[in-house]
């Protein structure tokens, strides 16, 4: 009980500290627009990648269509905030985006989650492309040109707070009866069924959960960048999120954070290299995969409760 409280307080302190550090750097001008952009991209990538990691790393279902759900959130915000350019409008748009993404995830997931491995990946990729092509051809979304001048209703602080919230919610989900049922499905579907676990239902739960958080990422993207187009949400966008997950370690939320930050920083540094940027990036990707095949952190997670226990053990050992 006490250990839990202490661990939770440590997390809270860490989150507040992060906010204060960024805020004071903003205040003193240490963070220019360029760096702020990087931080926001990192934050949005964390939101997207934790959701995808839940689907791939914890429920073991290979989804390659995350950008499709992100697009739904982005367009919900883009369209709604053009008539309701208030913070309330932004949050309404985010909720609407999540709801549509949930419905879309159910429509996609119920039939396709029966498929296995790469077949599921290719089916979800196809579904995301269908979503994107619909957006590309609808009037309300302004077709291939996309939406411009979306009201700037998300600041870095909005992204930061929502990043913390979605991460807390996702991690809470994983460390519960639901999360364990989902991992059981990943480990052995037949055994999970035999233990009374409705595998279809739990796979769908993870998939829908991931889709809803992807919609949040999309909303933030639209409200911060202020311009969106269907091509922002193509297969390559889904792959970019997948790269964050695999690079960090499939099944490690801490790894997702590390990879999102690392890739964001790498991208910013590489801006100076011009055309060589993508070559260095792809080489880095190949080399990291060859030398760290299970990702930067494997399945390791940072846990203050565990650290506390270790610490306690050491203290008692010394005495």
């Amino acid at each position, binding site marked *: 009980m006490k250990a839990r409280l202490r661990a939770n307080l440590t997390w809270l302190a860490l989150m507040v500290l992060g906010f204060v550090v960024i805020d004071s750097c903003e205040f003193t001008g240490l963070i220019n627009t360029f760096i702020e952009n990087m931080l926001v991209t990192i934050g949005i990538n964390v939101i997207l990648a934790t959701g995808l990691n839940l689907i*791939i790393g914890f429920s073991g279902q*290979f989804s390659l269509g995350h950008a499709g759900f992100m697009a739904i959130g982005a367009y919900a915000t883009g369209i709604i905030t053009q008539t309701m350019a208030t913070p309330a409008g932004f949050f309404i748009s985010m909720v609407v985006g999540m709801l549509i993404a949930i419905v879309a995830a159910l429509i996609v997931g119920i*039939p*396709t989650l*029966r*498929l*296995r491995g*790469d*077949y599921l*990946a*290719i*089916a979800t*990729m*196809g*579904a995301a*492309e*269908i979503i994107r*092509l*619909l957006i*590309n*051809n609808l009037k309300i979304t302004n077709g291939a040109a996309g939406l411009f001048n979306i009201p700037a209703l998300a600041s870095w602080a909005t992204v930061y707070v929502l990043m913390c919230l979605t991460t807390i919610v996702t991690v809470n989900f994983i460390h519960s009866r639901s999360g364990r049922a989902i991992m059981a499905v990943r480990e052995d579907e*037949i055994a999970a069924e035999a233990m009374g676990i409705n595998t279809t239902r739990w796979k769908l739960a993870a998939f829908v959960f991931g889709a809803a958080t992807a919609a949040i990422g999309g909303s933030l993207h639209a409200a911060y960048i202020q311009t969106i187009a269907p091509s922002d949400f193509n*297969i390559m966008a889904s*792959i970019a999120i*997948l*790269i964050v997950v*695999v*690079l960090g370690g*499939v099944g490690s939320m801490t790894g997702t954070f590390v990879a999102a930050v690392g890739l964001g920083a790498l991208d910013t540094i590489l801006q100076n290299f011009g*055309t*060589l940027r*993508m*070559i260095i*990036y*792809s*080489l880095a*990707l*190949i080399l990291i*995969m*060859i030398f760290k*095949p*299970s*990702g930067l952190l494997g399945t390791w997670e940072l846990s203050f409760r565990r650290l506390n226990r270790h610490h306690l053990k050491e203290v008692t050992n010394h005495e």
Partner: protein
Amino acid sequence: MQTIGQQFINGLSLGSIYALLALGYTMVYGIIKLINFAHGDIYMLGAFWGYYVINQLHFNFILAMLSAMLFCALVGVVIEYFAYRPLRHSPRITALITAIGVSFLLENGMSYLFTANTRSFPQVIKTVTYHVAGLRISNIQLLILGSACFLMLLLELIIKRTKMGKAMRAVAVDPTAAQLVGINLNHTISFTFALGSAMAGAAGVLIGLYYNSIDPLMGMTPGIKAFVAAVIGGIGSIPGASLGGFIIGILETGVQAIGLSAYKDAVVYFVLIVILLVMPAGIFGKHTKEKV
């Protein structure tokens, strides 16, 4: 009726390009269970090779295609050796990300070395259009269809009749057992990459001739479409890949012909999903149930 026939012919020629590409995906997947994301970019390399040897060295078409196949086979083997071989025992998703990395590297490397500009492919063969029963068929279309069918038959022969082909099939079924009976795993996998990449190289030269324009990013979309074709046909199955390629080619031109070109890709993906739901392992794929 005539337009249908016309679209069918156009669909077949486009489909044969997809089929050639899909063969490479299906063979590699069959043998090491890797979605070789860089396969579409090998096809791009083939097209660029063709472009240079025809323009600079004044190769004729046949020579250009054969040399492109050879070049791409070599590239495929080199990529497998450096990027995929070290990851043979790693999680499959890791190898997939590496393949994506290789794809980025080839696309951006080519853009860096030769600029990202689109260039027109030299027309080594003068286009002649024949009119048969009210249908227009160009000699290029016939050439594409002919070469594609010839290569597919050749491939089928190699896989069914040669010793290496038998080894490939054995490794695809069970790599460990294949090694126990004395099959050299590395050689077999290299050979598979060489064969698949050679097909992609041929497809690259043919598409250059057909569409007349090439650029470093040209492999991305056809690559994904060809993979979809391989999945539709049943990934791992050679006839499946050819069939899948033709299905997608005909579907695309057909949808375009009825005035829905904006939804062309959406229809392809929709058909893909429907086929997978009905046949979870594609048309010719074997659906294996786990034994309890």
